[in-house]
């Protein structure tokens, strides 16, 4: 061993120097992960770094999920151009329902019990994530819809049924504590609506194009939202 190696390491640590504090300070800088621009923006809009982090770690907003959504909607757009049917508008609510069911909640979040004890309440996280997923899927759906050459009324008309189907999926997922149940409920409900058009002698696009359904859709969505609110409540005082 050289003089350099032997000499320095023989010195004991001065008794008043805390090397653990030194390492903790170093580790804090080395392990620090600076939030990206999207997270910083979300933190400012939501006024909560915790909510912003929760939003960006939503299971159905991670890149593979988004890619899958884009693929499904793109396929729908291509098929719609070929067949002239409003396929994107029929598929988009189903995609959103699946995304919302997998956004958050018992059955999805393995640390759900712990999340229930957090200052940023699980309901706030649920709300922000559901809205986030809905917004992203709405934008993707609108883009696919426009690309498929649909009329403007159809392009925007499916946002209302999408709201209703998403609310159904979320309510089912929350009550059953299972994302899969939520997806199944959402898809089943939407399928019934879509097929009720041809069954009653109407078009397959009946579910998205019938303006008389707007209010019923919205009322249904509000009911499902109330169910979610009830299922995630902590009541004031004894229950």
């Amino acid at each position, binding site marked *: 061993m050289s003089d350099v190696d032997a000499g320095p390491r023989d010195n004991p640590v001065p008794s008043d120097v805390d090397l653990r504090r030194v390492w903790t300070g170093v*580790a804090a800088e080395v392990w620090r992960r600076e939030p990206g621009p999207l997270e910083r923006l979300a933190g400012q809009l939501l006024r909560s*770094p915790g909510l912003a982090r*929760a939003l960006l770690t939503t299971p159905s907003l991670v890149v593979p999920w988004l890619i899958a959504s884009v693929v499904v909607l793109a396929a729908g757009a291509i098929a719609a151009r070929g067949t002239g049917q409003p396929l994107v508008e029929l598929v988009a609510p189903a995609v959103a329902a699946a995304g919302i069911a997998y956004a958050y909640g018992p059955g999805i979040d393995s640390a759900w019990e712990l999340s*229930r*004890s957090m200052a*940023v309440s699980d309901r706030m996280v649920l709300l922000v994530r559901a809205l986030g997923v809905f917004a992203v899927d709405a934008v993707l759906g609108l883009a696919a819809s426009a690309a498929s050459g649909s009329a403007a009324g159809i392009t925007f008309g499916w946002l209302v049924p999408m709201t209703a189907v998403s609310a159904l999926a979320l309510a089912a997922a929350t009550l059953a504590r299972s994302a899969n149940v939520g997806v199944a409920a959402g898809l089943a409900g939407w399928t019934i609506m879509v097929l009720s058009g041809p069954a009653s002698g109407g078009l397959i696009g009946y579910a998205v194009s019938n303006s008389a359904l707007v209010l019923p859709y919205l009322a249904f969505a509000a009911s499902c939202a109330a169910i979610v609110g009830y299922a995630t409540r902590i009541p004031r005082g004894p229950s």
Partner: protein
Amino acid sequence: MNVELTDLTRRFGRTQAVAGVNLATGPGVFGLLGPNGAGKTSLLRMMATVIPPTSGTLRLLGRDPSGYGPRREIRRRLGYLPQSLGYYPGFTVVEFVEYFALLKEMPAAQVPAAVAAAVERVDLGSKASSRLRTLSGGMLRRVGIAQAIVNGPELLLLDEPTAGLDPEQRVQFRSLLRDLGQHATVVVSTHLVEDVGAACGEVALMDQGKIVFHGTPGELTARAEGTTAAGDAPLERGYSAVLAQSRS
């Protein structure tokens, strides 16, 4: 007093999990002993504000958690380790602890240093950048302890914290408890009697939803005198003696 429980009950359907508990405790380490199904977890969950009580009053850190504002304030000052803590497999140790530090609304500027300190405190510094899916059960438990202590809580609730820890880690953990108990109220729920004896200044024994003993570990040990209670150690015999008496 950081914890004040008065006639606290919790019912799940027809099952009475907690059947009228009275407790008051301040800073220090408080052990909650009892067999499986005694109601320890339900009691801890109420103290963690995860579930509301069915009846009775609960005051935590001087506040009533039934209101949204006070509940949020309590949760900022609370640390909780559930009995079974799921984890996010793709997160690293640091990411997981940091995530919950943010959800506890710690000031963002303080988070990196607090996370580093918590990770080091549970001796996981060498695994800080490892994904949770690569860790053993004992290490995952320590990750859970780290997230519970990251915000320097005034009320720390630990449900079976030593599950999966080896003997050396359990010794280190008891030392951590004693440090934390100097300034905070630490409630440790466990069925491992020796953990309680080594670290706790005060002990309560629960059975069938009720507290059947409340005192020091020494007083619990003394309850075995003059009995033929089962157990390999004095505290275990005290535990058995009290349970037998409460059930007779």
